[in-house]
């Protein structure tokens, strides 16, 4: 990002930015389109010790901030600074940076790493504080994401999502893997490996468990899986197909699609197991339930009107109201954490496109230029959506801002990659 923009005091208005632009960082690519973007220019100095450490903290922090769409990096290569420095802010101001971050990482005698940083407001000449973390080598990236969260919150006033996790599924050589990865798609760890398909992972509200559909017993059944311990239990293994798990916000209940009574219908089931309670009674297909953030409604897909559309109904039961009216194929609803937005997939002229509806007004925007979009899921701060699509003939995971202007392709394993679900804030 070497272009020279005229810098305003608090924000950079990249009004002339028309063509897609790519980050120079190797492990990911941020694509910026559209006009009128307001991005905060920030300089992240190389962390003292980065060169000797297994993770480059400054690069991870910068990539996080860039992917959010709200920051623009200012070159800080060669700067010799750390959290204890008293930097002369004048040259940074001249470079157009509104903020500057610097830090260090040091190996402790017990083998852990001490990671520290400090943030400065370059414009006001103000120390915005800092933090330190003592972490194992396996949590160095987590420490970097927490630094990015701190900076994001200090400068935007909203919580960052960089230290959250994303679950997704890969298929390579007929081997399926359910992964838990950092929010940038890196640092993926396998939670489940299987020779049969795995679909529809869904994080519990506390971020400790995943519900998903596994075909390992030659039919779809729903498991709840404790990610840290690998302990899992069958939550729905009824006659017929069991699928589409969704957690209630309080974590006590799962909504699922079961065909045990003939036809695919919605049921709720206690998260500890037990007898399901039937929620819908239709002659058609009812599936893909998701709870509203207040836990009072369930959005779902039904073809009761002749074609798949998204409906909303009270959790207690009662009559559903239709939510989507444009087109003849609207599926895979996801509701933003503030309940304001509905993301879903629409078939338009034979291709599948991610749509974002403002629920209050019913206004719908198509925010991608790909044609095989699937499985949208909101970041816990509601500012980004992760979704699956195809790019250059391969499956890919992308993040996008709600207006579609900033997109990034997430890093991932080889093979096909799909079914992303963005986890909640970690405590």
């Amino acid at each position, binding site marked *: 990002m070497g272009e020279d923009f005229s810098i305003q005091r608090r924000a950079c208005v990249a009004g002339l930015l028309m063509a897609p632009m790519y980050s120079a960082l190797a492990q990911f690519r941020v694509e910026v389109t559209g006009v009128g973007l307001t991005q905060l220019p920030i300089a992240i100095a190389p962390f003292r010790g980065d060169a000797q450490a297994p993770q480059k903290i400054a690069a991870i922090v910068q990539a996080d901030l860039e992917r959010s769409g709200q920051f623009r990096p200012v070159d800080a290569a060669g700067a010799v600074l750390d959290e204890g420095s008293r930097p*002369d802010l004048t040259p940074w101001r001249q470079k157009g940076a509104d903020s500057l971050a610097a830090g260090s990482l040091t190996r402790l005698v017990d083998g852990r790493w001490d990671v520290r940083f400090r943030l400065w407001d370059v414009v006001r000449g103000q120390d915005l*504080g800092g*933090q330190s973390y003592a972490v194992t080598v396996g949590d160095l990236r987590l420490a970097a994401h927490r630094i990015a969260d701190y900076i994001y919150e200090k400068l935007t006033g909203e919580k960052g999502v960089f230290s959250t996790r994303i679950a997704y599924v890969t298929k390579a050589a007929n081997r399926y893997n359910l992964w838990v990865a950092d929010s940038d798609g890196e640092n993926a*760890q396998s*939670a489940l490996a299987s020779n*049969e*398909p795995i*679909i529809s992972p869904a994080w519990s509200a506390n971020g400790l468990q995943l519900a998903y559909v596994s075909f390992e017993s030659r039919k779809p059944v729903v498991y709840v899986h404790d990610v840290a311990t690998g302990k899992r239990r069958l939550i729905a293994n009824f006659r017929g*197909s069991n699928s589409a798990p969704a957690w209630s916000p309080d974590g006590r209940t799962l909504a699922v699609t079961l065909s045990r009574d003939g036809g695919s219908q919605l049921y709720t089931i206690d998260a500890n197991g037990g007898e399901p309670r039937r929620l819908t009674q239709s002659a058609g297909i009812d599936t893909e339930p998701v709870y509203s953030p207040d836990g009072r409604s369930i959005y779902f897909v039904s073809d009761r009107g002749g074609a798949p559309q998204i409906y909303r109904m009270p959790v207690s039961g009662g009559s559903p109201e239709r939510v989507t009216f444009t087109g003849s194929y609207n599926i895979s609803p996801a509701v933003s954490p503030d309940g304001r937005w509905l993301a879903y997939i629409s078939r338009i002229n034979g291709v599948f496109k991610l749509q974002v509806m403002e629920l209050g007004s019913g206004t719908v925007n198509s925010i991608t230029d790909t044609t095989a979009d699937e499985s949208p899921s909101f970041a816990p701060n509601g500012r980004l959506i992760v979704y699956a699509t195809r790019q250059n003939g391969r499956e890919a995971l992308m993040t996008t801002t709600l207006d579609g202007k900033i997109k990034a392709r997430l890093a991932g394993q080889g093979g096909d990659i799909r079914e992303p679900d963005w986890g909640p804030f970690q405590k």
Partner: protein
Amino acid sequence: MIKRMFLALAIVAIAGCSSVPLDNVPVEDKSASAVAGQPGGPGGTESTVAPVAADEVAGTGAGPVNVARLIYFDYDSYVIKPEFQSMLESHARFLKANTRRKVSIEGHTDERGGREYNLALGQRRSEAVRRALGLLGVADGQIEAVSFGKEKPVALGSNEAAWAQNRRAEIVYLR
């Protein structure tokens, strides 16, 4: 918080000077909250995920000899075409003669559309076959209708020839 505000005021008071005094703003130690109470125990890696390998699936059993197991469907349809009727009758005869044998009817779709919605469409196909076998006198307890949606295509490729082969229901005899 209040301390921090005082500090901010102090800094504003000396603004104009571009280097900032830091001595009074300690770097906040977040190690305790970051590491304590984690699954790996004290000092363990917080973001660790325990890997699990799913068990292998049990094999399938033999059914009637020289009888096809696949029923193909038109796009967006779960109507069983007349050409499959005699094949279904053969399976029904076998199941009625062997009442301890069970079958799983596995419904499949082509690759177009969402995974969960296709799972439900595949279920419609397998249930159509289950109902057809039921009408031919097979006991309901011998048949389970399930769906794989678009997850298990037999033909790869994004064209009508491949899609037509993938829109199917498969009769699988259990051991």
